[in-house]
């Protein structure tokens, strides 16, 4: 009996150690994630000289909002901001129009050619023409240097389409659809008045996925847009943030001076550009997680 007891005690203390180590591990990760974000914030509101001198580590030094003042004067940033908002809104609207009905159609078991359509959509997930043919297609559609070059190629992600299909397959009852059909509703009527109101979750998830994707993308804008007034925020940021060290001329004092002026703007622009997404994120987190889980049903 006492042997048994000591066994349980040993197990309990072993468990306690495990829980403690586990907790420390996760807290460590949380600090690793949070500190850089925290540092950006305190560096943005600190005196740039103090930041450059390495005095700002744990708390802001010589609090100033001059960085924010400077960024308010940058018309290119606000032009980019506006462009990004326009591109994101249009992308979301069009992507929902393209993705949701197609997802519904693919979830219908009696759809003629369902299998062939699935294969049609699966192939691009694993094989593509690559960058240059893609560029040439967009170019031959006369989209280069228009906002549509940034919007149209992003309005359908096959991955999202399949996620939508899985959602419909797993969460819409066939009996409901059949009942509507017996009542004489046509397929379009069924989709618009019955299915869409039941699909708020997937609409939210898809809107968020496409919105974040467009908000954060720079590459298509970089290769397709020449006109600076069309630049989205990320492309403007690229020029502000990633002026590489090799392109910074001079040495010693001049480099240091350039750093002083540039870095404050950099810290501030990181905040200004990421704030909408990061602030929105905790509220919509459950939708994002839901999306991943809908996707995992398939896997």
């Amino acid at each position, binding site marked *: 009996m006492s042997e048994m007891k000591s066994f349980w005690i040993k*197990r309990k203390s072993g468990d306690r150690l*495990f*829980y403690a180590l*586990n907790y420390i591990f*996760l807290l460590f*990760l*949380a600090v*690793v*994630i949070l500190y850089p974000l925290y*540092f950006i914030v305190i*560096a943005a509101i600190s005196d740039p000289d103090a930041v*450059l001198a*390495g005095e700002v580590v744990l708390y802001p030094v010589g609090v100033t909002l001059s960085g924010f003042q400077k960024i308010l004067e940058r018309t290119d940033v606000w032009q980019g901001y506006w462009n990004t908002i326009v591109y994101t809104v249009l992308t979301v609207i069009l992507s929902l*129009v393209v993705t949701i*009905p*197609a997802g519904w159609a693919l979830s219908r*078991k*009696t759809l003629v*050619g369902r299998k062939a359509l699935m294969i049609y*959509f699966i192939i*691009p997930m*694993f*094989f*593509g023409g*690559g*960058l*240059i*043919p*893609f560029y*040439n*297609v967009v170019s031959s*559609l006369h989209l280069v240097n228009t906002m549509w070059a940034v919007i149209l*190629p992003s309005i*359908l992600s096959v991955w999202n*389409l399949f996620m939508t299909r899985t959602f419909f397959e797993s969460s819409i009852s*066939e009996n409901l659809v059949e009942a509507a059909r017996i009542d004489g509703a*046509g397929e*379009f009527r069924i*989709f618009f008045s019955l299915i869409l109101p039941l699909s708020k979750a997937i609409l939210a998830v898809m809107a968020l996925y496409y919105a974040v994707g467009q908000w954060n*993308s720079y*590459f298509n804008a970089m*290769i397709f847009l020449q006109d600076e007034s069309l630049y989205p925020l*990320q492309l403007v*940021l690229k020029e502000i*943030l*990633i002026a590489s*060290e*090799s392109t910074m001329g001079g040495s010693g004092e001049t*480099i240091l001076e350039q*750093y002083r002026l540039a870095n404050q703007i*950099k810290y501030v*622009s990181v905040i200004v550009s*990421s704030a909408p*997404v*990061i602030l929105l994120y905790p509220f919509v987190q459950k939708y994002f*997680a839901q999306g991943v*889980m809908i*996707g*995992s049903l398939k*896997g």
Partner: protein
Amino acid sequence: MSKACKMSSSDSVVLPSVRLDHQRKRNNLRKSLPWLIMAFPAILVVFLFNYLPIYGVLIAFQDFMPGDPVISPLTRWVGFDHFIRFFNDPQFWPLMKNTFLLCIIGFVIGFPLPIIVALSLNALKGKKTAKYLQTIFTAPHFISLVVLVGMLTLFFGRYGLVNNIVASLGGERFSYFLENSAFRPLYILSSNWQDFGWSAIIYIAALSNVDPGLHEAAILDGATRFQRVIHVDLPAIMPMISVMLIMSIGGLMGVGYEKALLMQTDGNLGVSELIATYVYKQGLTGIPNQGYATAIGLFNSVINVVLLIIANTTSKKFSETSLF
């Protein structure tokens, strides 16, 4: 759906089977027409931006000038010349090596980390704490690549936080962005920083479906919490791990060149030039060399497909899980 099936089968009693077949097909088509209309925009978008470029891959076998149609009577076919030229390009081996190493090292670190984090979060006693931590871990996923690389330059630049701390401790400043040796660590660590929490979600979801009875049985058998992680939780998410493994092997050679492009400087080009960034430079910058660039891109895609098929068949053989 079941109703529709019943109706057509009751018809079959009356009608001769051949005519029925014909009629049913027509019937099905008529019934499917609204759905096909709903799917049409998606079909069109995929055709334009995925299938037309696949057709455009033909220029990899041509002497192509920008603006030429893909096939015309004037097309000059050059067979595999571009491929042979790439294999003899002095850049060929460095590009292969850079792409491969970045992917392999990234994979070795980046693949297990989300699994460990998911298991760890799942073993946490306070469910509320786990939720908060998960929110924190997922947040960096929403930072854009431009901002992420911008943050890297701010932290690791010559006068960034890291160098400031090193200098204040009496060390030498180090230009992380101008050195070959720093590129891969910076790239891989920042990728992990950004995405481990996001990638963990799928495993966390799988773990929430583990039968609690298994845990209770294990506790009665005297298993510690750690033993339960290894012998209950881990096997439960094994199928998910295999699927993710196959997918990441398929994408192994297709790493985020958008990020590599942002991180490139003259100083680290020796390791940061990847196949995909080379394609971009050859095809879209300077004097474009599109046929050549497309051939290199095609070579890369073919490697990816082959890797995917190998991973899939191997997994099918050993674990009964596969994508297709």
